[in-house]
């Protein structure tokens, strides 16, 4: 796997990607030969109505699922043929996930939740790393809280810290603001932008126009194919003077 560097190199290169689900004799094509390139360090938003295949695309790009056709190069390596264990290894070392429903372990404290990915790798400074990650999302005062005592925004920021802990190349965010009020949503999107500035590639899946406006580029998907893509004009950017996090 290539080392991470900010460059014009494509971190993700997808050609003619297909995914078909089989239920008995019924074939359900979800992705029908889709091409997509994502540059290292880019911030893209994938938009589309439900059933368009945007989640499936994200799952395949995030190594949670395997394509049934086409090719997928990640950091220059063809990964379409990897075994389940290899996929787990890539997820562990290269990928961070943020989900709409947070998916925090209810009985583990904030810092324990953030440290969860480290359970599956060798790390001796897990606690310090988790503190640092929580610090970067402005939650260093909540280390020993249980998720149930956090607000929605705090929960999602904990989930972001968890996605950050293994210093991933790419962070996938699936409707990260879907369960949040607008103020918390802004905070979360602000964090994603800051992470992007630090060099993380961010791939956001959403159906909200405003949320997508935080990205650099929007990909519109319909019926398993890319319908259109656009450079974001008038990108929403909090980095100038917004003090929401402080």
């Amino acid at each position, binding site marked *: 796997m290539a080392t991470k560097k900010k460059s014009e190199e494509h971190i993700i290169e997808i050609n003619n990607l297909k995914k078909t689900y089989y239920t008995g004799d019924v074939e359900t094509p979800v992705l029908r030969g889709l091409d997509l390139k994502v540059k290292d360090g880019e911030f893209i938003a994938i938009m589309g109505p439900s059933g368009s295949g945007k989640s499936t695309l994200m799952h395949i790009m995030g190594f949670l699922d395997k394509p049934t056709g086409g090719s997928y190069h990640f950091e220059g390596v063809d990964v379409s043929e990897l075994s389940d264990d290899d996929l787990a290894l890539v997820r562990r070392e290269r*990928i961070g996930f943020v989900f709409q429903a947070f998916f925090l372990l209810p009985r583990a404290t904030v810092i324990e939740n953030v440290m969860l990915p480290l359970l*599956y790798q060798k790390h001796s400074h897990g606690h310090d790393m988790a503190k640092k990650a929580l610090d970067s999302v402005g939650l260093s005062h909540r280390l020993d809280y249980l998720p149930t005592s956090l607000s929605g925004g705090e929960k999602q920021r904990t989930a972001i810290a968890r996605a950050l802990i293994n210093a991933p190349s790419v962070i996938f965010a699936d409707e990260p603001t879907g369960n949040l009020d607008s103020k918390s949503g802004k905070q979360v999107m602000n964090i994603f932008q800051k992470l992007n500035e630090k060099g993380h590639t961010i791939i956001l899946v959403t159906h909200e126009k405003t949320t997508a406006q935080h990205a650099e580029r929007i990909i519109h998907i319909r019926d398993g194919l890319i319908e259109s893509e656009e450079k974001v004009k008038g990108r929403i950017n909090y980095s100038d003077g917004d003090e929401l996090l402080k």
Partner: protein
Amino acid sequence: MNRIIKFVRIAFVSLTENKTQAFLTMLGIIIGIAAVIMVLSIGRGAEKLILSSVESFGNRSIFVQPGGGEQGGPPSPTAIDKVKYRDYLAMQDLDYLEDVAPILVYSVAITYGSQNQNTRVVGSNEYYLSALNSGVDEGRNISQNDLDLSRRVVLMGYKVADDLFADRDPIGQKIKINGKTFEVIGIMEEQGTRFFQDFDKRIVIPITTMRTQIFGVDYVMSVLANVKEGYPIEEAIDQTRFFIRKRHSIYNPQDDPLKDDFRVVSQVDAAQTFQGIADVLTYSLVVVAAISLLVGGIGIMNIMYVSVTERTREIGLRKAVGATAKDVMLQFLIEAIVITFVAGFIGISTGVGMSFLISLILTEFVDSWEFIITLESVLAAFFVSVSIGMIFGVYPARKASRMDPIEALRLE
């Protein structure tokens, strides 16, 4: 390795978080393990008791008992009168035997002043005590004269004497046995419990007196004898068998023990019989306990299976952050093992505690009962409980490990 330690820690934490549920999950294993420990402890205690009973008799002693068959143990009720008093008299003339003592036991009421009690009286002769490797503590033994004259004299176990006379000197006291007056001539040395009977609560009178005045029968319950030094015990048993067979006019050239109406056994045979009975009891109880462990294991499998379904999302998340199927499998397997390990620990503690209580109660009835817990039984219990965790944890853990992360995360 590091990961395994972390998984063990996680499992312990989740156990303590839901104590009631964890306890109910473990209950089957706890009961099963406690039962195994108790059964093994009592089995060992019984074994020890039998061995000490054997040692209390001379190892040259043989018995003639009524009833055919290979083994010792109690004769069938229909055969009880087959060994006759005159068989005993005739055995006195066998030159390879010595200290030939008849035994006839009967339940009687004894009275001293206003005190009454029921006890077992043994009719025998002057060799009774030496055959039991015992002797007279105070006073004198039964004599040939007592036998010849059918005197009303009685030897007492020290417990009977203590009960009746308290601090008074028992020798020379007069008691009534079934209404007839007897003189106490001696107190027997402590004999303890042998084959589950407290010999110190018995009294002994001359068999001639017994037959003429207390219990008029022509048979005896057994004849005890010692084989003379230098004469092979097996040979003595065979010779005695031929001798009695001839007296009973039994034609048995095939030497089939079932054709005989009596049997000649050595002390070792008798012990083996009791040992055999104790073993069968122990093992059948272990089997029952094992079934309870099996049920407990299935209970754990059931709970784990439900827990896997409940924790679908957690499993999906773990996979999303990089857990392999093996990691997930390991986590759930370790959880099951930790549950059964803790259950095993509680079960062993409970079992040891219960065994101790039971031994306290048994000591009330059987003086020489010993409380025994062997290291092997504790280790075996731990091994069994951990194995149950492994065996019954595999199925739910496999289910968890095969879960598709997308499906798992899709559930809202």
